[in-house]
């Protein structure tokens, strides 16, 4: 691919994943040597109507956003979902635990019915359009994004790990959070983050989504042994788990 045109788009999210691109500092210049950003609202004023690669951040929470996303999809050869909001719905899906009308009243009170506040349950990008590649994480790791971009440029399929975070956590030589009496989602969460949270003394809250075949029963069965309850586990899984805790 000759210097591909890249567009970066954001939907409901904190824009922290885009920020990781800016945070690449000098490496950003390396990236710019390989790709040609033609649209990136947060950082530049230009716009375009074709993209070799569209990088999409955020969840879809309104019909008009779904429409905008479809347009992006139509104008792009590859779509990369960037970060947890885009790949699994992220924290946005917490709102799906409530009826949308209730959430609106909770937040906007009497104004909840104003038309411009209309919204739908949060969806990940792939629930609306076809996604070619996912860069997981909340926020993403810029190295992973650039790895994916470099692979795509080389014509190589980037390999996404399907083993749990524990693998990387062990390699980082951490004491396991369970030994501290905490509930960690590492054993069921897809690796690729270098176990960032456990390596900083914090349990894994599952921002990369689950491995293909998570053993949730195993996770549940050991709660008592650590002085925890099933509800403790469920409440951790609820944070990024796209309501998968309901499977337990």
């Amino acid at each position, binding site marked *: 691919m000759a210097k591909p045109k890249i567009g970066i788009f954001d939907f409901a999210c904190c824009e922290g994943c885009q920020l990781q691109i800016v945070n690449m500092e000098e490496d950003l210049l390396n990236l710019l040597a390989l790709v040609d950003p033609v649209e990136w609202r947060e950082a530049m004023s230009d716009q375009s109507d074709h993209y070799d690669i569209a990088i999409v951040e955020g969840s879809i929470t309104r019909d008009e956003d779904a429409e905008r996303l479809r347009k992006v999809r139509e104008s792009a050869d590859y779509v990369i979902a960037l970060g947890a909001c885009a790949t699994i719905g992220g924290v946005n899906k917490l709102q799906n635990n409530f009826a949308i009308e209730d959430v609106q009243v909770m937040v906007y009170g009497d104004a909840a019915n104003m038309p411009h506040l209309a919204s739908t349950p949060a969806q990940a990008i792939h629930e609306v359009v076809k996604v070619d590649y996912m860069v997981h994480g909340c926020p993403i790791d810029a190295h992973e994004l650039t790895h994916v971009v470099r692979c795509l440029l080389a014509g190589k*399929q980037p390999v996404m790990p399907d083993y749990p975070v524990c693998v990387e956590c062990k390699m980082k030589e951490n004491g396991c959070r369970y030994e501290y009496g905490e509930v960690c989602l590492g054993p069921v969460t897809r690796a690729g983050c270098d176990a960032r949270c456990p390596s900083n003394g914090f349990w894994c809250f599952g921002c990369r989504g689950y491995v293909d075949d998570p053993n949730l029963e195993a996770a549940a069965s050991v709660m008592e042994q650590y002085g925890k309850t099933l509800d403790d586990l469920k409440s951790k899984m609820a944070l990024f788990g796209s309501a998968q805790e309901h499977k337990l």
Partner: protein
Amino acid sequence: MMSATELSQVRDIYLPQKATVTEIYSMTETEKFFRFHLEEGEAFDYMPGQFMEVSVPGFGEAPISISSSPTRVDKTTFEMVIRKAGNVTTALHALVPGEPVGLRGPYGTHFPVEDAMKGKDVVFVCGGIGLVPVRSAIHYVLDNRDQYGEVTILSGTRSPEDRLFTEELYEWKTRSDITFLETVDKADARWGGTVGVITTLLKRIQINPANTVVIVCGPPIMYKFVLLELRKLNVDNSQIYVSLERHMRCAVGKCGHCQINGLYACQKGAVFNYADIVDVKEAI
């Protein structure tokens, strides 16, 4: 303790040698034929049934069987047939003549063309891409035809379009000093031959079990059925050789991926005497 200079003399088992693609063409929709030529350095001594690690820099390495026979090409040339399956093989398919690859090897055991097969009747049973490594042994045997007894080649593919080396198949078919039988799982309008899985061919041949060596190579599911048929034909397990594929990352007995129970397939295989693995539970 070895000094730095001493260590630098030691051969790095992971270091590929540069080679060039000298020929490449499509054989089927998913398989391409390759001829690689070693650029410099030593020639690799190899025997039929062995494999090499083929590198495309940036994409990785894959174990690939040598399909040519040392009786036909010099030891700096290797013919291979590669199925497009993932990153490395897709990158290989994208190469054009003159482009570089890396080669290291040869690795693994080989078909007993120089020992157990000598003087015996030989039956080759090949399923699909399993023909690729066996072709090396077939060439070897045909080039030393007088040293073996009856030679029978059985080949099965999914469909007529999946047939590899069609010209050679035609040549084998027309040779009078060997028996060649072929079948496809699913025929098309032009196919006039046998239809059915490979075991149907086994039922059609006569063998002298005491004096026959059987070589089996094909996809994982093929082995069970073929071996069952061979048992019916009273072929002793020690007369049967199978070539088994496993996930490999190093091909030098370290990485652990290819282990079949305790056996490293890259070292004790890929060609196994069936008697040695009949009790190895993960083998077949």
